C-alpha cells in the first residue's frame, strides 16, 4: 500500500499562507492506514493549524472532510460544494489524490499536506517499510522473493556490495541488507546456484525512466 508521512507544519503553513478559507481533505484509504491523512489526522492537522492561525493572529478558517479515495472522480465530486467554497484545499492524500483534485478542480488551489513516501507495509504497528518500487519489471522470481530494487540502496542485481555487514546495509544499519536476505532465502530454497549467473542490465524503461506509465485494458474500456 502507498505509505505517506505528513509534511512539517511549518511547510504547510507556508503553503497556505495566502489563503483564508482552507479545506483540509483527508483520504480514507492508503494514507489512513499509514496514519498520515485519515479522518483522525485531518482533525489533528486542523487543530494544529487553528492553533497556528490563532498564534499568528491571522483570520484563516479551516474546515475538515475525508473522502473514501481522493484518486476517484466520483468520491471527490461528492464534496464538490465544500471544495468550491474553499480558497485552497490541503490534500492529505498521496500525490495521486492531490493531482486528481487539481485536475478535477482546475481553478482551485490544491496543496499537498503529506509526502508520499513509498510502497510498503507495516512490519509492526507504527513501523512501515518499503517493499516495492513499482519498477514495472518484477524480478522477485529470481531473487527469492526479496526485491533488491526496493530494498538495496544501490539497486544491485549481482550480489551484495562491500558494505554488507552482519546482515545490515551500510547506508542504514537498521536496514537489512537485501542481498543477505536473498542469499539466506535462496540458501533455504536450495537455489544458491542462481547467484552465480550474471544478471544482466535492468530494463529501466519500464520504470519511470520510460516516462509516465500507462496501463490500458482495451477489454474494459467503456
Amino acid at each position, binding site marked *: 500500500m502507498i505509505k505517506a508521512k505528513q509534511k512539517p*507544519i511549518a511547510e504547510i503553513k507556508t503553503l497556505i499562507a495566502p489563503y483564508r478559507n482552507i479545506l483540509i481533505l483527508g483520504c480514507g484509504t492508503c494514507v489512513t492506514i499509514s496514519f498520515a491523512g*485519515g479522518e*483522525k489526522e485531518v482533525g489533528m492537522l486542523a487543530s494544529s493549524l487553528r492553533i497556528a492561525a*490563532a498564534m499568528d493572529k491571522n483570520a484563516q478558517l479551516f474546515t475538515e472532510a475525508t473522502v473514501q479515495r481522493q484518486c476517484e472522480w466520483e468520491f471527490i465530486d461528492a464534496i464538490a460544494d465544500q471544495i468550491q467554497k474553499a480558497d485552497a484545499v490541503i490534500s492529505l492524500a498521496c500525490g495521486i489524490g492531490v493531482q486528481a483534485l487539481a485536475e478535477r478542480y482546475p481553478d482551485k488551489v490544491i496543496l499537498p499536506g503529506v509526502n508520499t513516501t513509498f510502497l510498503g507495509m507495516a512490519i509492526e504497528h507504527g513501523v512501515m517499510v518499503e517493499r516495492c518500487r513499482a519498477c514495472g519489471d518484477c524480478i522477485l522470481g529470481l531473487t527469492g522473493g526479496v526485491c533488491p530494487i526496493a530494498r538495496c540502496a544501490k539497486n544491485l542485481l549481482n550480489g551484495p556490495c562491500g558494505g554488507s555487514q552482519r546482515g545490515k546495509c551500510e547506508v542504514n544499519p537498521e536496514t537489512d541488507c537485501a542481498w543477505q536476505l536473498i542469499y539466506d532465502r535462496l540458501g533455504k530454497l536450495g537455489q544458491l546456484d542462481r547467484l552465480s549467473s550474471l544478471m544482466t542490465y535492468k530494463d529501466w524503461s519500464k520504470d519511470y525512466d520510460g516516462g509516465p506509465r500507462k496501463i490500458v485494458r482495451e477489454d474494459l474500456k467503456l
Partner: protein
Amino acid sequence: MTSEKRDLAPPTVEPLPPCAATCPAHTDVRGYVQAIARGDFEEAYRIAREPNPIPYICGKVCAHPCEDQCRRKDVDEPIAICALKRFATEKHDPRLGHAPRLTQAEPREEKVAIVGSGPGGLTAAHDLARMGYKVTVFEAYPRLGGTMQVGIPLYRLPRETIDLEIAPLKELGIEFVTNVRIADVDGLLSDGYRSVFIAVGSHVGAKLRLPNAELPDVWLNTEFLRRVALGEKIDLSHRNVLVLGGGNVAIDVARTAVRLGAAQVSMSFLESDETMPAHPWEIEEAKEEGILMYPSRTFKECVLDEGKLAGVKCIKVDFRGFKPDGALDIDEFVDTEHILAADLIIFSIGQGPDLSFLPKDGSIAQTKRRAIQVDPVTLATTKPGVFAGGDAVTRVGFIIDAVAAGHRAARSIDAYLRGVDPRTVQPDESEKLGAIQEKTISHIRKLEREPLPKTDAATRRATFDEVEHGYTETQAVRAALRCLTCGAGATVDTDKCIACLTCVRVCPFEVPGLERGTANVPVEQCQACGLCATECPAKAITMKLYSDDDMIQDIKRAIKRAKSDSEPAIVGFACRYCAYSGEEPKVVQARFPKNVKVIDVLCSGKVDSLYLLKAFEYGADAVFVAGCIVGECHNDKGNVHAGQRVAYVKKILDELGLNGARLEMFNTAPGECTSVVEDVIRLAAKVKELGSSPVPYPSRAGRSN
C-alpha cells in the same frame, strides 16, 4: 409514548450486561457503578433510583442476584453492586428530591387500590401515581413496608430507611391506609376503585406436623419476627433456641434470637453445609455471632422432659432436593436418631400468603401451591381488573422481584384502564451478554473486592443496630473501578472502517477481529479500554459511554473554569485508577493550584492525541496527562500509549512554536498521590514562567470553527 413511560422504561442498551439482565427490575447497574467510578455520585443515584422507588432499602437488603451473574466473577470476584447502590443513596442530596428526573403526569380520575405496602405494592403505587392515577394503599399492619417492616430484622434494615422511601411516595399523592386488612376485594371494586393490585406478601409461617409442635414454646418464624419488628419486648435470656430451617429467613430468626439475649441459638435443617439455601454471607455472619449449625437432619418429634419442651428428635439424612412430583429426595441414615436440645423451637421452613380474604366464589383463582394464580406476563388474576404480584403469587421471592412485579402490574393496570391489551405494554425479555473468553480474561487485571465495613460480631450480638456500614468515598470508587463495563465498549462504524487492523493490534485484551472485511469488536468481549477508538486512524470506532464531542465539551468547560483566575489555565486528564492513588479525587484536586482543572478518565489510554491539541486550541496554557506507572495500567498499556501520544503532541507544539514544555505526562505509582500533586505544582510554576499561551482565549478558532 408519553414522557412518564419513557422515564419508567428499562434501559435500552442491548444485549444487557448480566447484572442488568439479571436484575428483575433491569436496573442499569453498569450505569451507576460507572458513574461512581467517575465520581459522579448524583448521576449514580439517579440511575439507581430510576427503575426502583426503594433504592435506599435495596442498597441495604437487596439479595443482589446481579452479583451472582457479574462477569467479574470469572476474573476474581463480582463487583460489590449492592454496596455501591447503598453508597449512591448515602451520597445523594435529599434536597434534590427522591426521584430527581422522574416526572408526574396530569392527574387522572381513575382510582386504583393496592392491597399491601410491601415492595411490590409500593412500586405499583409509585408508578401509577406518576401516571396520574389516584392510588390508595391498604396495609393490614400499623406500619408500612410489608415484609420490609415486619419481616426483615432491624439490624439489617433500620426503619428510618423505610421511612425515607415512604415519605416521597406520600408526596406523590398516594393515600396510605394502615391497620386495615382488606377482606373483600369485590368491595373495593364496588367502592369505585377501577382496578386492584393484590400484593399481600407471604406472611404465614408453617410448622411440620410433629408431635408436640403445638406447644407454646414452639413458635413460627413470621410471627416471631413480626412481634420483634413491631416493638414487642421479648426476653430470650437463658433460653436455648433451636431454629428449624436453613433459609435466609431462618437466619434472620436465629440472629434476632441472639440479639434478644438467648443463651444459645442453633439452626438445624435438611440440607448439608454446602447446600444450605441461605446466602453464604448470611451464614457466615450468623456463625460469627455464635449460632451453631446442625445440617442434614430431619425432624421427628418435639420432645418433652417433665412436661417441658426439651428439644427435637432428629435423624441424619442425605437430602438431595425435591423429586419432580414435589416429594423429598432423601435417605435417612439408620441409627442416627438423636435429640437436639432446646427449650424454644422456632420453625422457619417456609411461608406462604394469607389468602383467606379472597372471594369465596373462587373468582380469583389460586394455584395448587396456595398462591394467587396470574397471567405471568400481565399479572392479571382471573378476575378482570384485579392483578396480583410479589410473594402472594410466587410465595417466596426477593424484594427486587416484588419491585419488578410492581412495575409490571402498574403497566398492566394502566393499559387495562386505558382499554389497551396489557400484554402489549410489557417489555420483551432482554438478551444477556455472553461470557468473556479465556484469553481475554487472562489479560484482565485482578483487583480485590472491597470488603464492606461491619460491626464486629461480639458487639452486634447485643444490639439491633445495623451490622453493615457503607463504603467511604475512596472505597466506593475503588470498588466501582473494578467494573468491567460489560457491553459498553467499542462500536465499529463499518462504513468508515477500512480494516487497517489498528484495533486488532492495539487491543490489550485480544478482542477485535475482522469480519466480512471490516473490524469487529465483539460486544461481549470488549473491555471498554478505549485504546482502539483513540488509535483508529479512520475514526471508525466510538465508545458507548462517551464520545469525542463529550470530551471536547469537557475540555472547553475545564478551560473556562481554570481561566476564571488571571493565572494561566491548566487542564489535566487524570486516570482515576491511579492518579489519585486511593485518595479521594476532590482531596487531591484541592491540593492543586486553583488554575488547574482536571478531567477524570478511566485510563489515560482514553486520552486521544486530538484532545491534547484541542485543549491548546481552545486556550489552555498547559495540559497534563496523569496515568499509572508503566506496568501498573488497568488496561495493560494504556498509560504507555498516553505517554507516546504526549511525546508526539509535544513535538507538534514545538513545531507550532507553542513550546512542548506546556504538555506533560505524569506517571503516578500506587500510593504516591503526592507525586502527582508535586508534578502539577511544578508544571504550574513552569507555566507561570512561560506565561500565557500565545493562543488567545476565548480563541477565535474556538468560536468560529
